[in-house]
């Protein structure tokens, strides 16, 4: 399971989320206001809208399209309409860069 570089830490401000594409797949990488890092699947499980366009509040990402909400720590779908959880992925800070471990 390789660790892949997403971006330097300072390119992802606190309280923000960015899209990361690799090998034909896409993820959402989060840096919370409290400076924790998380990574989930990129697309909402409801209508395939990218969550990097969503609203990040604390540990919740809200899909911009139909207001589905997920917990970025667990991927759990918290509010209608999505019923399927997101997958979450390991993230680390390495030499000032954000990396995710993907298979």
């Amino acid at each position: 399971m390789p660790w892949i570089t997403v971006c330097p830490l300072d390119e992802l401000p606190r309280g923000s989320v960015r899209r990361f594409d690799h090998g034909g797949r896409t993820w959402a990488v989060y840096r919370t206001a409290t400076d924790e890092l998380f990574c989930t699947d990129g697309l909402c499980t409801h209508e395939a809208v990218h969550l990097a366009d969503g609203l990040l509040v604390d540990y919740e990402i809200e899909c911009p399209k139909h207001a589905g909400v997920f917990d970025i720590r667990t991927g759990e779908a918290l509010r209608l309409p999505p019923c399927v959880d997101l997958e979450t992925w390991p993230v680390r800070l390495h030499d000032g860069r954000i990396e995710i471990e993907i298979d």
Partner: protein
Amino acid sequence: MTRYVIVGAGEAGIRAAASLRAAGEREIVVLSAEPIAPYERPPLSKPPDPDRGLLRPIGVDLSGVELRLGCSARAIDRRARTVELATGERIPYDRLLLATGAKQRRLACPGGDRALLLRSSDDARAIHARAEPGARAVIVGAGLIGLELAATLRVRGLEVCVVELAARALGRAVPAELAERLVERHRAEGVLFLFGARLEAVEAGAVRLADGTRLPADLVVAAIGVEPATELAEAADLACANGILVDSSLRTSDPAIFAAGDCAAVDHPRYGRVRFESWRMAGEQGRLAGRTMRGEAGELTALPWFWSDQWDLSLQVVGRCDPQRQAVLRALGSPGLVRFELDPTGGLAAAAALGPAGPVGRAIRLVERLIERGAVVPPSTLADPEADLRPFLRAP
């Protein structure tokens, strides 16, 4: 085991069934007048997704639910607690949910029946079947459905004219400054608009207006709003007034009968008596009915929210907009715009946003949370496109 019967398999009925099932209920019958599996209605007025088409099943696990398709309910016998089907069969219930939805209004003018309506997937298919490139379409009504359909038909290469009795588009639920920008976007794509236009008649191949204008039309669609489907409830002497009257827990005047979705006029704790007509409210009410029918406590606290997609613009509204309220505008990219509406104490009451999907979604999602928390944000901050409003979620 309590036996639940749900009349209607739209968003409200299906979410109620799923909610009951998730709570462990095992006797759940859903009656659908339509012969096909439950599907999402929002895509019907929008350009068909090239990958998925018009018909998208509602993505809910209904295993264990008895879904009876093509079953029209004809009457309710409240004393015997049965629902009578068009076939004469009687279905017993302990708790009944009416999720009968709404019906499109027909045009009252001569020839009004010539106009197509858009409510079901069959309706959508009938419209698309006649939507030949180069054909001339007249859409009566500049509401959300009318405008979405205008974009959909224009994309397919039709000449589209929208005829509206009122002086502007989207007069019921969308602030004027946003509606105007959206209409401008349509005009830039070649859609024609006639406002203040009264229909005289729908003729073969044309629509005639009261001022004598004759609009050639190969396809006429009436999108002039809906009426709640209350016939069953009224025939059963349930209290109705522009919808089946329910309390904030969705109970009708009969304690064994509940109503949810477009057919229900709900006593909302925040707004008073309202009949909502939106996808999210239908789903929220369905889920709530699933709980309150089981005897759990619960009130409809969800804020009304809806979206529309037209051309490259997204429109989203949360809360109930009111042109009389104090409002603050914020630019949202170009040509995006957010209108924040404040209540008399300065708290956020509603907002509407138009622009690119991502920023619009983020703005409205945030406002919804701010309204729920009763947040007060200074107008100068609301107006500042650079100001992050998230810190106000934590303020007391």
